[in-house]
């Protein structure tokens, strides 16, 4: 068996993320690929188009790292605990340079990923009737249904150059298992040209084959699989560690002042070699506080025919 897809994060980002390319980074509050985004910042990738439904802290960091020219999103905010100040500075015309922003709703982004993953030229949805969004986003277009003659809005596919997602575990071949909030991860992977998956742990193939329904991304859709423990911090990984709510609350103050934000990027990304430095810098007590208790599911019977 070949293990050609097993890489370091540095290798995977260098191999698949290039200046000027488009990147889908997904994870709905859960399993956000922070470590991969930090590596993009560390490698100083430039002029990216970023697709992300819930543009939160990870996007603020990428923008502050000067990696992003265009953002395509359906929600830009740090849940209810503050603003993304770098993003707001750029959109409100107060930053060092502007950011192109293309606004959708969640339903629109999901439809775009479905079109992209299905190889379709567009996808219809029941949103946007009477909305101002089509006036500022000319990709949201109306057609007449060939069946009932009714008007319906459609959106184009997302087919990013590279998709990056985080997951609980994978085997060395790149079969990826996710549980808890699975979000849009499967559609995102199938919509992209190349797929990088960071995981909490690489496990034996036996672990994966004991529960095949939990494999959301089969190895055929995965190009790089990277073991990055704690790779989703400060977001969470169900069954591994909880969300670092304190950091989410601190981000408002960190991002409010541009210099404080640049100092944060320097201390927590540029001065560190890789994510293991970041984990070590936080210290073991820090991780103990976030560790998830053990709540296993009951096994199911996958038995088939008597031999």
């Amino acid at each position, binding site marked *: 068996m070949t293990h050609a897809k097993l890489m370091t994060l540095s290798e995977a980002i260098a191999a698949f993320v290039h200046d000027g390319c488009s990147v889908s980074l997904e994870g709905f509050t859960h399993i956000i690929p922070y470590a991969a985004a930090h590596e993009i910042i560390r490698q100083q990738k430039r002029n990216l188009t970023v697709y992300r439904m819930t543009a939160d802290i990870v996007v603020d960091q990428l923008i502050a790292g000067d990696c992003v020219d265009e953002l395509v999103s359906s929600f830009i905010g740090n849940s209810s605990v503050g603003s993304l100040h770098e993003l*707001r500075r750029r959109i409100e015309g107060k930053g060092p340079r502007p950011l192109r922003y293309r606004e959708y709703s969640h*339903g629109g982004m999901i439809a775009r990923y479905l079109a992209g993953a299905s190889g379709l030229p567009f996808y219809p949805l029941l949103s946007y009737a*009477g909305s101002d969004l089509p006036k500022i986003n000319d990709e949201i277009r109306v057609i007449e249904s060939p069946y009932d003659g009714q008007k319906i809005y459609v959106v184009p596919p997302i087919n990013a150059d590279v998709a990056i997602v985080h997951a609980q575990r994978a085997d060395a071949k790149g079969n990826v298992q996710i549980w808890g909030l699975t979000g849009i991860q499967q559609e995102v992977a199938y919509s992209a040209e190349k797929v990088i998956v960071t995981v909490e742990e690489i496990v034996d193939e036996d672990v994966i084959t004991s529960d095949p329904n939990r494999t959301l991304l089969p190895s055929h859709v995965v190009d790089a699989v990277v073991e990055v423990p704690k790779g989703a911090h400060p977001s969470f990984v169900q069954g591994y560690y909880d*969300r670092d709510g304190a950091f989410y609350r601190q981000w408002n103050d960190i991002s409010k002042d541009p210099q404080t934000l640049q100092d944060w990027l320097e201390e927590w990304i540029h001065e560190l070699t890789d994510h293991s430095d970041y984990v070590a810098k936080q210290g073991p007590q820090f991780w103990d506080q976030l560790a998830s208790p053990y709540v296993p599911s009951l096994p199911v019977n996958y038995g088939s025919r008597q031999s």
Partner: protein
Amino acid sequence: MTDTTQATQISPSELLAVVASRELAQARTVFAGIGLPTVAVSLAHLTCAPDIEIIYESGVCGAHPASLPETVADSVLITGAEAVLDMTALFNYVLQRGHIDVGFLGAAQIDKWGNLNSSVIGDWAHPKVRLPGSGGAAEVMANSKEVYVVMRRHEARSLVAELDFCTSPGPDRALAAGFTPRGLGVTKVITELGVLSRTAPGEELLLTGVYPGVDPADVVAATGWDLKVSDQLTVVPHPSDVELSLLREEVDPNRVYLR
């Protein structure tokens, strides 16, 4: 503690949560974000709607959290949940197929037809303030049977004659644009002063309820459009002792959301 003593100590959030919970008596499935809407649904579950179920924007159905969740996607909502759906199932099958009775939304601006703005203050291309945007609000509005809006502040800059931008259009705008709307749009707006209601497309939001001691003329003055007062205006009863004690002792004992 007497009823009068409790009434004088009711916080605005408690009042909004209790009033919203009473409106949920007929609802079975509710799409709600974390905060006052979930508090209201939890109280309704204990009072007027024992079979009510929250469906969260993260895809969690039938959650049984051991502690109060901080976000719609909190890990405590997953542990012990009855189901966790992916985004395609949630938005395309649950919402678009019409499984939501009541959707709860908030917004920076609402107009008299119940259209919502959560995108920008000012011009979209050159905003004075950039707001988070739709999230799933446009889909909740388009696909729920009806929508309730909770506005903590009742003021003319939030309840406006004209939206700066329409993020989540109601059925009247859909009809005007030549579409067939599916749901009723906003039917209730619960604010710090009272309740605004409408029952069908073509109707404006009317002032249908005020809290004890609130002058309807003050509500009209605090509204950015020419708010009409219903000829069936009622005084919304104070939260009862039972509602208050359930809210304070069972639903949110640590006062995470009952500020």
